[in-house]
């Protein structure tokens, strides 16, 4: 893959100028995404200032409306950093909403008991996929694709119809507003930020985090260095499964129902957020903080389209695609520079 990318202009071995050093900085993609977010927000402020876009609550709503996506994308970041891919995220979220709704509504279990069960199921599902990927050397793409079918199928096995949740403790949890100075956020938003903080700590300050980067950077080297690459890979998919289940719980809170079609295709949103956040899909390079900005940019597209009013929902998809394209090209440009 990388073999075809040698650009004739990238071979300067002179002392890197300031510009070159800036372009070679690994943090640049995150910076670009953050900058893009600010620019988009600024444009929104200019265009819709009389429609209340400037209110802090609009900003906080980004976290309320996209908390579940952030959690899912954080899980996917681990997998992508390790050089893998997880296509089962959307199905796992859908399955968790179904599983939770079924246990709470049909079986009458208290939500406090259901939450750990759902998380355990998600983590175990991820563990199984990681186990198969590592031990039988089957491509992650295919294994997680089977996971996609499996969990979507299990949703339908539980029930073909959606189950709405009327349980009191769930709705009170869903409606809890945590007051901040300038507005409020939901429990889901707080949980997602906590997950982000934990992931940031784990990836950048723990041994496991360094192993994830090492395996993603070059699996062969990681193995020769004596890193437990198998364990790391399995752990990464377990983390992703756990995050998907947690995202499913947040989605259940957000939407207060279980439906076999919930979150269809959300794995793509999550992957797109990770890519827009500057993480390289080849693995080994990227920051989980970038994923936050990726999710915020995707969320901001949605709110701008809402504020615009006349734009139809499919513009979200087109805008996401165009942004994705722009970021991939920026990434490409920068990795070419770095090789030089």
């Amino acid at each position, binding site marked *: 893959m990388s073999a075809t990318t040698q650009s004739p202009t990238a071979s300067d071995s002179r002392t890197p100028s300031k510009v070159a050093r800036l372009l070679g900085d690994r943090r640049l993609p995150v910076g670009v995404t953050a900058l893009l977010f600010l620019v988009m927000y600024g444009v929104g402020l200019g265009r819709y200032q009389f429609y209340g876009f400037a209110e802090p609550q609009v900003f906080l709503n980004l976290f309320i409306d996209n908390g579940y996506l952030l959690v899912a994308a954080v899980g996917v970041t681990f997998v992508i950093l390790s050089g893998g891919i997880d296509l089962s995220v959307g199905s796992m979220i859908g399955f968790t909403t179904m599983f939770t709704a079924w246990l709470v509504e049909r079986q009458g279990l208290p939500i406090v008991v259901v939450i750990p069960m759902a998380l355990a199921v998600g983590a175990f599902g991820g563990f199984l996929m990681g186990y198969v990927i590592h031990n039988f050397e089957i491509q992650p793409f295919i294994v997680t*694709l089977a996971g996609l079918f499996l969990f979507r199928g299990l949703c339908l096995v539980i029930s073909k119809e959606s189950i709405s949740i009327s349980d009191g403790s769930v709705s009170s949890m869903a409606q809890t507003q945590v007051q901040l100075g300038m507005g409020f956020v939901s429990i889901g938003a707080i949980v997602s930020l906590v997950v982000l903080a934990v992931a940031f700590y784990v990836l950048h300050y723990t041994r496991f985090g360094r192993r994830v980067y090492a395996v993603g950077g070059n699996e062969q080297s990681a193995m020769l260095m004596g890193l437990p690459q198998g364990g790391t890979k399995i752990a990464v998919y377990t983390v992703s499964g756990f995050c998907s289940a947690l995202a499913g719980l947040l989605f259940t809170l957000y939407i207060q129902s279980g439906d076999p079609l919930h979150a269809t295709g959300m794995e793509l949103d999550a992957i797109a957020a990770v890519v827009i956040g500057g993480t390289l899909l080849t693995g080994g390079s990227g920051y989980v903080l970038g994923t936050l900005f990726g999710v915020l940019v995707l969320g901001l597209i949605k709110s701008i389209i809402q504020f615009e009013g006349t734009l139809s929902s499919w513009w979200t998809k087109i805008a996401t695609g165009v942004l994705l394209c722009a970021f991939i090209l920026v990434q490409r440009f920068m990795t070419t520079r770095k090789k030089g």
Partner: protein
Amino acid sequence: MTTSSTTSSRWRALTRHHLFWPVAVLVLLLLVNVPFTPDFFSVKMADGHLYGSLVSIVLFGSPLILVAVGMTVVIATGGIDLSVGAVVAITGALACSYISDQKDQGALSGVLLAMGLGLLAAVVCGLWNGFLVARMGIQPIIATLIIMVAGRGVAQLITDGQIITINSEPYKLIGGGYWLTLPFSIFVVAAVVAVTGALTRRTALGLLVEAVGGNAEASRLVGIRSRRIKILVYMFCALCAGIAGLMISSNTSAADGNNAGLWIELDAILAVVIGGTSLLGGRFSIGGTVVGALVIQTLTTTIYTIGVPTQTNLVFKAAVVIVVCLLQSPKFRDKVFGAKFAARFGAKGGAKPAPTPADPAAATEAAPKMEVS
């Protein structure tokens, strides 16, 4: 090994053939149907058309076969194309919206123009994918993700978010019509498969594709225009997806930007993998892919006929996918059936990892192989 008789070595040669496992699975799946539908293999003649389970498997499997054949060639170059589902939707949307704007929807010239327009759009999508992969050097899975995400938006933009229904007899032929007693789509598929097979196996093109998939840089250095070949295969894949898009929209006489060809890329990749083509590129088998697509379609049909509740069919499918992939994994065969079995049936599946000294199973597997040669 010297004591082994000729029959066992023939058997071994047979089981090592790249089509052995896919065909075995297909035959097994077909046979599973017999106890549930005794006349499963019978083909009846009615109204001048042939009817029967086998005919409908091929008929309903046609779009998948087309997409999978295109996907095979892309995967052979070490790439992957996630955008085929979106291309299916765009092609169908363009063709149907053009026809619905015509005064006379049955006019042949209008239908041909609509089809041309749809296929042109598909090829442009393929060109874009190929450009990103070959010229910009972007990972294929990411490059094609762009159209996968944006493409359905474009399709909805074309149809204005509606499901466009049309009423056009000539257009109906591609996906739902009959010709010479057989569904017309079977002829389309046969033509595409034959042309692809001829181009890749009777000319040097297939070899070049495999060379690019094996090592793009090396093949460029020996004088193969690897970039041009990559662009070509993405265009070909998109063209196949475009034909499948016409077929799907023609079969339902409607274009649905949101749901047409949904998840077909995943089924197609699955068909390619079941057919024995490695996702790492470097070698491919069109025949295997056709068998793989038929396996998936037969599986779907079987699920319906043996009375598995429809809601569990996805679980069923996941189980089959896992079993087929596990069977193709040399490592799995080593671990589960032991080294003796693995030596007997050889390592035919996906990427063969370099045997490490710490892996005794791989070492024992390599030994008998040398004796055979």
